[in-house]
């Protein structure tokens, strides 16, 4: 039976993804900073899908040195690992606050890279595995309203591309997911355009469908077109836009 590890499992996208993966026949390993918060969701997944659902010891993406030991302590190396955690942060604060600045970089980039490295190396040694990284359309071009978050996601996207290239021959598959606006805890209270905002369930379905066939997936699909246009705007023009 295939086991999927979900990192950042308290997130809304992660819980929807967990359900889709269980529906597709995976057993689950759920990981979060505060494992106690996962108990009721894990139980729900068990009742719904009749799959094995276990909760791992606490996982903190920012604890950069801990990841190797944390992975070694898992019951087994998972067949699939999804890196869903992320930190949008407070951009105004980040401009003047080293701690917030570092946190955005560490959760979205450095920590994600660290744990993906450790998983990829072990999957490559085994000769099989799938890594799913949740990046963002925000990483496709730096914007004034989310320069720290966007650039960290840009780095993560580039890293996933390199990881795919590096480990393809070792049987490790890497899937980059770029969601657009999603209605989750992260965006709660923001005034997002309703027509462009997807549900976590929609995003999760797109991800599970993409895993066997795609390297990079935008979800919903139309963000590929939107981002193409945004990337095409010449920088002298782009710098004047309020985005």
């Amino acid at each position, binding site marked *: 039976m295939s086991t999927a590890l979900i990192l950042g499992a308290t997130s809304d996208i992660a819980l929807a993804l967990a359900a889709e993966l269980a529906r597709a026949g995976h057993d689950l390993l759920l990981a979060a*900073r*505060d494992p106690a*918060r996962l108990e*009721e*969701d894990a*139980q*729900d997944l068990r*009742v*719904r899908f009749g799959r094995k659902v276990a909760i791992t010891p606490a996982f903190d993406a920012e604890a950069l040195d801990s990841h190797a030991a944390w992975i070694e302590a898992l019951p087994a190396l998972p067949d699939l690992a999804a890196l869903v955690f992320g930190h949008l942060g407070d951009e105004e604060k980040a401009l003047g606050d080293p701690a917030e600045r570092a946190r955005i970089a560490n959760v979205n980039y450095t920590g994600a890279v660290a744990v993906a490295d450790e998983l990829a190396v072990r999957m490559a040694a085994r000769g099989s595995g799938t890594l799913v990284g949740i990046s963002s359309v925000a990483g496709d071009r730096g914007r004034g309203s989310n320069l720290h978050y966007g650039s960290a996601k840009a780095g993560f996207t580039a890293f996933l591309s390199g990881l795919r290239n590096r480990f393809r021959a070792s049987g490790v598959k890497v899937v980059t997911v770029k969601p657009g606006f999603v209605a989750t*805890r992260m965006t*709660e*209270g923001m005034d997002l355009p309703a027509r462009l905002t997807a549900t976590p369930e929609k995003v999760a379905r797109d991800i599970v469908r993409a895993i066997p066939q795609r390297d990079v997936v935008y979800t919903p699909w139309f963000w590929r077109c939107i981002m193409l246009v945004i990337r095409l705007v010449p920088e002298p023009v782009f710098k004047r836009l309020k985005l």
Partner: protein
Amino acid sequence: MSSPSPSPDRHSISGWGNRPRVEARVRRPRTRQEVAALVEAGFRGIARGLGRAYGDAAVAEEVMDLTRLRRFIAFDEETGCLEAEAGVTLADLLETFVPRGWLPPVVPGTKFVTLGGAVAADIHGKNHHRDGSLGHHLDWIELVRADGATVRCSPEENPDLFHATCGGMGLTGIITRLALRLRRIPSAFIRMDTRKAANLTEIMAAFETADAATYSVAWIDCLAGGPALGRSILMTGEHAEPDELPARRRADPFRIPGRPRLNVPLFLPGWALNHAAMKAFNEIYYRRPLRARSYRDLDRFFFPLDSIGNWNRIYGRRGFIQYQFVLPRDRCADALPRILERIQASGRASFLAVLKLFGPAHPDRPPSLGFPREGYTLALDFPWDDRTERLTPELDALVLEAGGRIYLAKDACMAPATFATMYPQATDVRAQLPDGGPARFASHQSGRLELTP
């Protein structure tokens, strides 16, 4: 680590009838701990599920939307006992448990309701004459009271609170979890028998003889008058065994065939459903050739309207009401024709009208504000306008005079005095209302009916 408290959001909300419409502050807690935290922080308003109550029961300036409390907790494959959070929808429950051969003991005419909403309205189904309302099939309810305390109640534990909460329209607290006994089914199909009844006397006789059927309900043509007054089509149903089904269904008898879902994208103009159109429709509907026996999957048998999304928009922006009442059995033969004639005289048409014979209310102790009692219940949809506004108090008076009552999950305009006479047990619910405590539970409906101060 405490989770971030959910931020409020402003939305325009209403019941399924699209009136009244209110700008509300909508809280959307993710866990029962967040529910308790919101209550302790002084929540003042009412719980809300999927907003399928027609009137103003789930409407207030502040509402707590429970749809994120949608986790299953436990399921016992031996007994069928399901523990779940209150925001689990019936649609979700069916999708999860029908393939395993289980069905809730009571289902309403739509699967887009939450379990909490279903309990708060103590819903009834097409099997009421045999199985009673939802409250009879609950092991326990857990709710957050106005002081923030989480309390469990059942027919044995805190029974007064239990009977006030079933059918209590959210006034006793926020239901967070509950335990419900599901029932085994042999397939996802119903064997449906259909027959016509030429008038009210015939349909009432048909219901009497259909007493042994598991499910029974009739569509009634409220526009036909004179000797055809009350002409109806009676549908009865039984769970189908797999070996009765066509060969292609037998392999997987619990699979419900998918079908396209239509949608009403916009509010239609108010005149779209005029009297002549409805009369023509009813005529065709009644006259069409019927197959005496057919097989329907659960969706088509129980929730035919769910195949058209947002169908409530066909009545236009002014909205509509569903008028549903029940009359004591011994008063039906004289009062029902009078009510039908009164509706016809008003020139008010109802596109959808449903007639059903309820069985006795719970033998031991019915819920304090429980609606079903032994007798006929009739549900009619009226577009909202001045004529409807004049008609409803007249109908209320006729229902009241016959000793009947109006269903609170549908009610949108009853007067407080009418309510007080129809529901003398309201005092039992008032006794369970919070005195003190940081929070207060009240809806537009409870204020209008003077149930809450």
